[in-house]
């Protein structure tokens, strides 16, 4: 990894950003969808927190903030899927992966860079507006300190890394399964539930709560949200996220070398 490869992956990331920026109508539709979803969830949460104030340790404003954070991060962190993995699986299925493999570039870094470009675009293009909307029209709990916001952004970055590492494994399964639809569905359900997208994970009691909070998906939404809401110490959160990221990226690397070594590249 020298300056040269840094420039290559920067170019890949820039390309990933611009590819998504091309589709403006899709972005506008996404913003609309996220806002509507946010409204539905906010009213559900308000009803819930009316009945059970301080549920999971959040007050009502924190719960509302959590909803709009979820909507802001849903697309960027591909919590329910919809990132690079669909494309990579399709390339494995059709054999187009051959083109990626003969290039003088690392497959995992390549897709990581492309997905990072996409994530940055979707954070700006699809995240900011629903979040601003929510903050304007609902009572939210936002920090005043710049340092908390900075820590939040770091946690989002680490969450994106964990999200990529998980989806990379899902995508590589296509080398063996060919049709990865089932894996995508499982990843979708796991992503929505285990990240805290449906309900904050601190709401879940007992062993279920303990387990689900320890799983990598909690790095995606629960961890950055708790940093922003002041419910978790940033450093500990970073360590938790980084540990999952390193472990999952390493597994991805192992699976990648197994996949490219012993699996037939499809098609003539």
């Amino acid at each position: 990894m020298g300056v040269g490869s840094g420039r290559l992956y920067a170019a890949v990331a820039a390309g990933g950003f611009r590819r998504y920026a091309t589709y403006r109508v899709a972005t506008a539709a996404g913003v609309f969808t996220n806002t509507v979803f946010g409204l539905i969830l906010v009213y559900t949460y308000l009803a819930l927190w009316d009945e059970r104030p301080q549920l999971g340790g959040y007050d009502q404003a924190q719960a509302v903030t959590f909803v709009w954070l979820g909507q802001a991060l849903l697309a960027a962190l591909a919590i329910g899927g919809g990132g690079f993995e669909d494309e990579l699986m399709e390339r494995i299925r059709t054999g187009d992966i051959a083109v990626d493999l003969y290039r003088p570039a690392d497959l995992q870094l390549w897709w990581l860079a492309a997905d990072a470009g996409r994530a940055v675009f979707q954070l700006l293009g699809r995240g900011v507006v629903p979040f601003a909307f929510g903050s304007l029209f609902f009572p939210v709990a936002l920090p005043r300190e710049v340092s908390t916001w900075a820590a939040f952004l770091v946690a989002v970055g680490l969450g994106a890394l964990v999200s990529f590492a998980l989806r990379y494994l899902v995508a590589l399964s296509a080398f063996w399964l060919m049709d990865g639809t089932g894996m995508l569905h499982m990843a979708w359900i796991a992503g929505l539930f285990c990240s805290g997208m449906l309900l904050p994970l601190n709401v879940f009691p007992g062993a279920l709560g303990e387990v689900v909070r320890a799983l990598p998906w909690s790095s995606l939404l629960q961890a950055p949200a708790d940093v922003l809401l002041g419910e978790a110490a940033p450093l500990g959160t970073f360590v938790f996220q980084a540990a999952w990221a390193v472990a999952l990226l390493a597994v991805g690397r192992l699976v990648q070398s197994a996949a490219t070594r012993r699996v037939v590249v499809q098609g003539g």
Partner: protein
Amino acid sequence: MGGSGTMAGADTAGPGAAAFIELDGVEKVFDVRKKTGFLKRERRRVRAVDGLSFTVARGEMVGYIGPNGAGKSTTIKMLTGILTPSGGRLRVAGIDPSRERTRLAQRIGVVFGQRTTLWWDLPLIDSYRLMHRMYRIPDVRYRENLERCVELLQLGELLDVPVRQLSLGQRMRGDIAAALLHDPDVLYLDEPTIGLDVVSKAKVRGFLRDLNAERGTTVLLTTHDLQDIEQLCSRVMVIDHGRLVYDGPLAGLHEAGESERTLVVDLERELPPIEAPEPARVMRVEGPRQWLAFPASASAAGLVARIAAEYPLVDLSVREPDIESVIARMYAERTSA
């Protein structure tokens, strides 16, 4: 196969330095699992490439043909390092492709006709900028090569067009340019003219011919379009069932395939079949017109003179065998053998 005379050889020193691409008994065996029942699976070994040996000298332009599933693409994938041979020895520019894939990538260009290396959603130029970084092409050389490709492949007006909006022919030219920006020593082309119209095919062929002549780029071309071979390659290799069944000049294929020419004779009136000297024979009679087949390697002169002397001849024409039927016959013979 004149390339050997201009061999630089410095970077491929050692035994077999004259060969730029070198295969010696290369094999590729795949395990294919087939479902034979509810839970039963049958394991079957498929030899996609079965003891393949050939060499290609620097600057050669070689056609690599064979029926579907013959092992062409498997060979190309081994030559790029994507697939590891199950046996045998394989070298490209002195490099073992599967062990040093990344180092080799700097020396080779690949165009898979049915796939694209270009960024689908973005303007063509973005993909070229990416190649610039990926192959670490010095700025000056990148600009020169891009300019040259843009001019010769007529890409000027397409650079700012998203790849998904390009026609197939335009996209193919775009892909060929992408494969050449880093000045590869060897270019593998897998079906570069598939699906193209006549004009686009001519453009692609013309460009490849010039590239080979001016830059001495070694070209290995797989194709189903035999005109590609006829117009570009002095040498052709035919592969079937993973084995090389012919390697030599295109013209020699006629002999190897025992091809025949056809003499079409118009007589004054309807007559019984002409009694032609062996090995010529009448294939078909239709009124005053008769069709005679004779070996492509034999001269037509004697046959024509004999018929003219003994029969009331009005007109005649000689039809050359088409290479496709020659190769089709070659495949058929091997399958039935």
